[in-house]
């Protein structure tokens, strides 16, 4: 095994600090004691800074695994010379059914995508249900059917599972956990710590569709053309991108990193990569593709689309020479028709993601603490 392959197994865990280091409130004798950290908050699940804190402060020290410490969407481990990608995800979305999918198809796509972001060919899924007593059987049947179809289309097999039932009132009807495994070809090295100054940042399509589709149901927003969740399996798009990036004329491993910007949106994904790689990023507001309907909903509710969840999109960091070929490959694929270059990786202010506005001025794209909330102000 050469040194590069060893890296996959035993990457030395580095500090996954994101900036800045915050002195504790006690040290400043702040007389306003917020009980931060005493209980779990909804924000801990939102994919933003709080989620990151939970992982770094609780899970990493306890589980102490180099693979885990890389904090990619999947873990890549080596067993008997074979590179296996391994991931798990839980789905707690409400409502259970929405335009463009259900909690079931979301579960399949989400796990397939986590594997795909590591360059893996997704193969097998497990599925575990936590059902609330009283859930209509018909609802469960619809969810299963949705999963079956999604798995079939994605070419993955659901091979094992589990079911638990909790008392009425303890759950939100239905929770799903999926775990997936896949195989990563040799030479494919995608990780959040590989972005370098000069690299290009690409988005595979319009941002914010999923989150707004869900929110629309809750807010009674109607769409002129129906806005659907973009939930989709991205592994064939990833394959096409890897093929394009491995052209002989291009430097090796020209595709540095892939992320699907789910909870926390584009902002969380990029802030994580920036922190992990120790680089800055500058985005071009005018280049970020957003559907009119999504923009309208965001304007109305006072939301920033950069923080809204996506379930069928990916962000790619590519070496400068590879940007155009990869972009072309994306646009040639049905799931990448609206792909755009949205920014560049810089060496200014490591860990900071900034945006050049449509006015030509600059602002920070900050990591959110918890969920983004609609505002009236």
């Amino acid at each position, binding site marked *: 095994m050469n040194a590069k392959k060893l890296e996959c197994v035993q990457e030395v865990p580095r500090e996954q600090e994101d900036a800045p280091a915050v002195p504790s409130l006690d040290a400043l004798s702040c007389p306003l004691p917020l009980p931060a950290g005493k209980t779990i908050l909804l924000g801990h699940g939102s994919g933003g800074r709080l989620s990151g804190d939970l992982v770094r402060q609780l899970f990493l020290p306890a589980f102490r695994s180099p693979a885990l410490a890389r904090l990619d969407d999947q873990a890549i481990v080596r067993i008997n010379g074979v590179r296996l990608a391994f991931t798990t995800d839980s789905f707690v979305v409400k409502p259970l059914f929405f335009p463009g999918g259900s909690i079931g198809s979301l579960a399949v796509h989400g796990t397939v995508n986590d594997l795909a972001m590591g360059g893996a060919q997704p193969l097998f899924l497990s599925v575990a249900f936590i059902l609330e007593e009283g859930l209509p059987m018909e609802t469960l049947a619809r969810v299963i059917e949705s999963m079956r179809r999604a798995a079939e289309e994605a070419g993955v097999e659901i091979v094992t599972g589990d079911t638990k039932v909790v008392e009425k009132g303890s759950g939100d009807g239905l929770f799903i956990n999926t775990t997936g495994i896949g195989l990563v070809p040799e030479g494919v090295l995608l990780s959040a710590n590989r972005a370098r100054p000069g690299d290009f940042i690409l988005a595979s399509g319009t941002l914010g569709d999923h989150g707004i589709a869900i929110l*629309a149901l809750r*807010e*009674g*927003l*109607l*769409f*002129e*053309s129906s*806005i659907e969740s973009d939930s989709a399996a991205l592994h064939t798009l990833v394959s096409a991108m890897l093929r394009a990036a491995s052209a002989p004329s291009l430097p090796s491993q020209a595709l540095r990193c892939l992320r699907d910007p789910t909870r926390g949106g584009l902002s969380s994904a990029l802030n994580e990569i920036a922190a992990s790689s120790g680089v800055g990023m500058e985005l071009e507001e005018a280049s970020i593709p957003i*559907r*009119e*309907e999504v*923009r*309208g*909903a965001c*304007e*109305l509710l*006072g939301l920033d689309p950069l923080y809204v969840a996506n379930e069928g999109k990916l962000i790619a960091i590519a070496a400068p020479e590879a940007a155009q070929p990869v972009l072309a490959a994306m646009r040639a694929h049905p799931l990448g028709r609206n792909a755009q270059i949205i920014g560049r990786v810089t060496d200014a202010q490591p860990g900071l993601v900034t945006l050049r506005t449509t006015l030509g001025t600059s602002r920070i794209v900050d990591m959110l603490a918890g969920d983004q909330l609609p*505002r*009236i*102000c």
Partner: protein
Amino acid sequence: MCLAIPGKILDSVQENGVRSGRVQFGGIVRNVCLDWVPEARVGDYVLVHVGFAISTVDAEEAGRTYEVLEQMGALADEGLVPEGSAEPS
């Protein structure tokens, strides 16, 4: 404070003594209370705050004032300096 955005009235109904209607904001549509903009007609734009129309956008005024702004922008583009400053309205 007061996030209010402009939307186009698509239709309007009177129900239980209250006027409301569907208003379109760049591709999404929401039900809005139109009780305080009795002069607003279908096709007009209104400013909506927390689900209520608080004013009708004065299209004529908007057009007039925007034209001045556009000219300013065009002149600046061509590197020409506008004379003095615009008369305060």
